[in-house]
């Protein structure tokens, strides 16, 4: 099967797959960032139990293979009467993994802030919450644009876990499996999806670089 035949037969399927990948990536990333902020604030809080929980969260979810986590969420949680639809299972898996890495990015961003600025904020009478909100988070966000760009790409690739469960519509990698069970697309079927991933990642890093140049903090 040649490329033109592949695209004329399955082109629409690929397009749907690409859109599904994009939408799952976007939804996941919004929650990845939100959760990463929450976990990071816990990890730098003055309350030890919170710090321990935050560190534990990162250690656990950074060190579980995506597929294993997906299986737990899709097949073990129903034992606890928690039944999520397939798409949600994939998204939750991606969020849990991604936010652990996101928090690590934030921690390295926070380490660039320097204890002096925190002391200055404390000496002005700002509370912990005010310091986090006005001094720490804005700087952590602005110094981690490039690592977060990488994370967004990683999140997109993680949504390929969707190929392991019956999604409808399927995302890109699921489409490849679908095509290859029906026709002999072979390597070509993968190549089309690979181009979609690479193209998207290219655009993401282009935009990421632009944003980084705009918001980078002069030192």
């Amino acid at each position: 099967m040649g490329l033109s035949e592949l695209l004329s037969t399955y082109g629409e399927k690929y397009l749907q797959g690409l859109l599904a990948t994009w939408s799952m990536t976007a939804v996941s990333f919004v929650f990845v960032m939100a959760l990463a902020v929450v976990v990071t604030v816990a990890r730098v809080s003055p309350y030890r139990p919170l710090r321990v929980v935050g560190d534990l969260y990162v250690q656990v979810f950074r060190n579980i293979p995506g597929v294993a986590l997906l299986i737990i969420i899709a097949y073990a949680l129903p034992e606890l009467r928690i039944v999520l639809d397939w798409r949600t299972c994939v998204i939750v898996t991606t969020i849990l993994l991604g936010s652990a890495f996101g928090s690590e990015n934030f921690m390295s961003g926070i380490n660039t802030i320097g204890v002096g600025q925190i002391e200055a904020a404390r000496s002005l009478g700002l509370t912990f919450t005010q310091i986090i909100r006005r001094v720490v988070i804005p700087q952590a966000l602005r110094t981690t644009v490039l690592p977060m760009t990488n994370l967004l790409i990683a999140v997109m690739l993680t949504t390929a876990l969707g190929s392991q469960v019956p999604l409808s519509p399927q995302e890109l990698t699921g489409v490849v499996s679908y095509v290859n069970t029906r026709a002999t697309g072979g390597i070509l079927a993968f190549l089309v999806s690979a181009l979609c991933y690479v193209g998207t990642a290219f655009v993401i890093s282009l935009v990421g670089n632009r944003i980084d140049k705009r918001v980078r903090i002069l030192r």
Partner: protein
Amino acid sequence: MSQEQAAEKNVPVIELRHVDKHYGDLHVLRDVSLSVQRGEVVVVIGPSGSGKSTLCRTINRLETIDSGQILIEGELLPQEGRELARMRSELGMVFQQFNLFAHMSILDNVTLGPREVLGQPKEEAEKHALELLARVGVAEQAHKVPAQLSGGQQQRAAIARSLAMRPKAMLFDEPTSALDPEMINEVLDVMVELARGGMTMIVVTHEMGFARRVADRVVFMADGQIVEEGAPDDFFDHPRSQRARDFLDSIKGH
């Protein structure tokens, strides 16, 4: 106790009673007692490692102490929490490394405290901030970020940031030690101005000229102890202790 009551009763603005502090085995503050009256300028000098910076930082509890008492206008310095934050907001602090917030304009640096801590509206905070920036001579830099300013300009902006809180007293922790020589005077001039205006100040510094000119009292520290204190002319011309004589000899004559 209100400010007026405190003034009437002659309660010191800042008072340390028998303060002790260790860093592991190192005894950094040994039974330090010091009291600073309203409007008084106390300059703390001494060799490096003498505990003078630590002393300065314990006063708004950036460093905790092991024993003793620290009182601000007769009130004990509270434990970590909201009360402490309030107390800190009443003491200005200027650091060796300026410590301006790197992601904010100079104007935002100065208005952050008044807006967040005192709840001032934006316009009021900015009006006051611009007055203060003009007073320290960096009004033209108000909309730049710290990295675009020279060290001297950054330190003057940092002083304005502290003043914006209308503090009862100002603590200066080696404010000119990180500056290029040609920028030291522009910062000292601002501090002289403040002292003349009646601000209560504790200044940790190596600038002996400033101490002689501005201090009401010079406190000499060595090995975590206050070795001697007195009027600047007495201290510089007739130091009583051998430690102080050695120190003064070591810094002059280049």
